[in-house]
């Protein structure tokens, strides 16, 4: 050996046991689905991991009924302190079984083990800890009611989550719902159901009353059945803007409430006085974290004209060190694209970018033969009119644009139907404050990107959705105030 080549450092998958097939989790028990089963595959190898039951409308009906029974019989009547105990217990079990969850998430999703180990699973546990603390303090949250008579739960909540952070999105949904006294029926994404089903085991282990959490697996029709079910009081959805619009149409004119956390095309704005090495890291974290499968990804780099060449040079030099490959290897930075469908979408959009005349670049890297893979890709010479500057690609693809003045940066950043997140890189504090005031995005990161914390509300403006998750603000959608109940 004459070079410092990192030897393979694979995480062991012995810590997880994957069954051949899985049913649904309804009323505290695993029950068979009445629909046909479908496979869930490891996107890094295309190996079939398990057969998953497809919940029919009848199955969804049973799950909603179980949630209603649990809500009216137990959970809705339980004191906040008692609910908090269950949530603390779930949080601790998530920590105890963290490795198991991390390995299973990486196998089913394709994300690098370092990310599932260091980001997804610890944050999921943190969401349960955080909301466990709120459960007996809802009367102090300033969301109606009083300490003596805290605001009431909404009832039965239907939740539909995406495949990019399967366990973490589950935690974002279930933890606040349960803390506020609601019961849930949750549908994980069809390509990544395994950690939700493992979470169902955690609910059993924590002795959570049957029916408080129900998991129904399946694809679009299962989600549709849940969304349209008349027994659901509130819907919470994270996913594409396209599906979000369908859900909003479906609930219009019904008594259901909805919160939607949808797509984004975030601007990551780098000023000429930025700390450049750290800004480059922020660009990398912004778009290549989780293979770019992040709704708030910094997919549009807006860089001040005077430092464009230097930033692009440094970015390319940095990307040459990105390690693409086996997600189970502890030294992998960029894992597999989640599905063949998503890979096709990324390929289509990058072909569009080339056809539109943007200059395409990727570092030299060898991709595995099997599985769904896409090299990190940078487009320079992109303008606002290009589709790759307008449409969400949801992959490891960065579009680079330039600006000259702060006002132009703001105009370009806001020139999108989306409004989920933005990043600002400058050493000038006053400019950060001014930009944060001008940018129409739910989250603005200053000199950092893709930082998440359960105490911080997250959500979009414009077509990126409505409602907030996390923080005090995230409790509101799961509560009815004294005045309105």
């Amino acid at each position, binding site marked *: 050996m004459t070079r*410092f080549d*990192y*030897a393979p450092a694979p995480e062991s998958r012995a810590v997880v046991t994957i069954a051949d097939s899985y049913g649904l989790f309804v009323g505290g028990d695993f029950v068979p689905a009445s629909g046909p089963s479908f496979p869930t595959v490891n996107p890094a190898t295309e190996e079939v991991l398990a057969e998953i039951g497809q919940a029919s409308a009848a199955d969804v009906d049973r799950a909603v009924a179980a949630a209603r029974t649990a809500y009216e019989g137990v959970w809705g009547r339980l004191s906040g302190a008692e609910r908090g105990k269950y949530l603390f217990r779930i949080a601790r079990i998530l920590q105890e079984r963290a490795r198991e969850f991390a390995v299973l998430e990486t196998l089913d999703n394709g994300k690098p083990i370092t990310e599932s180990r*260091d980001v997804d699973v610890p944050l999921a546990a943190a969401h349960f800890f955080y909301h466990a603390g709120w459960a007996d303090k809802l009367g102090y949250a300033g969301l109606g009611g009083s300490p003596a008579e805290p605001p009431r739960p909404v009832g039965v909540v239907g939740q539909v989550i995406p495949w990019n952070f399967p366990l973490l999105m589950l935690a974002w949904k279930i933890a606040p719902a349960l803390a506020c006294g609601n019961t849930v029926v949750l549908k994980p994404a069809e390509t990544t159901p395994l950690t939700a089903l493992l979470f169902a085991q955690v609910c059993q282990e924590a002795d959570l009353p049957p029916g408080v959490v129900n998991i129904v697996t399946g694809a679009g029709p299962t989600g549709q059945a849940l969304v349209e079910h008349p027994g659901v009081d509130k819907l919470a959805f994270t996913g594409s803007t396209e599906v979000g619009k369908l859900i909003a149409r479906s609930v219009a004119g019904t008594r259901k409430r909805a919160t939607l956390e949808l797509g984004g095309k975030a601007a990551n704005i780098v000023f000429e006085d930025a700390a450049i090495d*750290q800004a480059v890291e*922020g660009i990398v974290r912004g778009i290549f974290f989780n293979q770019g499968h992040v709704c708030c990804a910094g997919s549009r780099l807006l860089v001040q004209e005077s430092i464009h060449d230097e930033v692009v040079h440094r970015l390319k030099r940095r990307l040459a060190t990105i390690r693409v490959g086996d997600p189970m290897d502890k030294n992998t930075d960029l894992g597999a694209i989640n599905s063949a469908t998503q890979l096709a979408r990324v390929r289509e959009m990058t072909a569009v970018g080339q056809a539109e005349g943007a200059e395409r670049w990727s570092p030299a890297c060898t991709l595995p033969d099997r599985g769904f893979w896409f090299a990190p890709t940078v487009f320079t010479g992109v303008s606002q009119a290009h589709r790759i500057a307008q449409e969400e690609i949801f992959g490891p693809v960065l579009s680079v644009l330039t600006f000259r003045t702060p006002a132009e940066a703001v105009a370009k950043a806001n020139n999108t139907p989306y409004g989920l997140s933005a990043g600002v890189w400058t*050493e000038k504090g006053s400019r950060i404050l001014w930009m944060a005031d001008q940018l129409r995005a739910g989250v603005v990161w200053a000199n950092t990107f893709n930082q998440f914390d359960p105490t911080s509300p997250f959500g979009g403006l414009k077509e990126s959705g409505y409602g907030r998750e996390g923080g005090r603000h995230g409790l509101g959608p799961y509560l009815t105030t004294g005045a309105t109940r």
Partner: protein
Amino acid sequence: MARDLLGVSRLSDPVLRRWLHGLPGVDQVGAEARVAGLGTRSIKTTAKAFAIDLAISMIDLTTLEGADTPGKVRSLCAKALVPDPTDPTTPRPAAVCVYGDLAATARKALGDSLIHVAAVATAFPSGRASMPVKLADTRDAVEGGADEIDMVIDRGAFLAGRYLQVFDEIVAVKAACARPDGTAAHLKVILETGELATYDAVRRASYLAMLAGADFIKTSTGKIAPAATLPVTLVMLEAVRDWRELTGTQIGVKPAGGIRTTKDAMKYLVMVNEIAGPDWLTPDWFRFGASGLLGDLLLQRQKLATGAYSGPDYVTID
């Protein structure tokens, strides 16, 4: 060369100030996050074996105590010549680092081996002496056979903004490193980053030292806490990487003090590999200033070779 690079006919404090303060800032949170990220690299099996041998070959085996004696230095040299008596394939460290008055002792003990003698000079570690004294200190060490001189900058002058003074002192010490035969001892410039306090100051001090002709930039004397840290070394590695792109000249980096375990050393090597690049992964361009590190590297080396920990009694203590 410095004047050309800065595009001025004469160097002055304002000129140097404009240049140094025009460098991009370092975001503390971001720099430390980058270090933490690289710290999760998992170095196993063949990569670990390679890195252990590389780390051993990069050590400046150091003794810098008031109580040092010729006997202690000879004993350290013996250790450098035969790091592990049970395994002759063990590489030797790059240099033995001593006070100037013991350079000749070290030179004699190391004989015609390729191990360098490094000597600290310029009123190490404080640097508080007049220029003639600092230069005499340097010449004395070079005459004693030092291959490398580790000088300290005047941190007081640097922090007060007297950049030209710091620059001139480095240039003068560099001149004093010259030998009569036309060759010169290599100059390592110690920034004493523990006293510079901010990463912005570390970056500026690195550029100032490189501009003045340093062959190596070194973090610390080891006499101030904190000594070498990973984020400080990150900033210095970025500086030498960017300096080579700017000028074509490659400069070495030496973290010193506080690096005691194989695990620490692995983290530094990963950083060198991914920040400065593989070109720096040789003893010519990267060194560890350390005394205790060698023992732990030898233990880990034996463990890799035999599959079992031998225990500290199987590593000689010099």
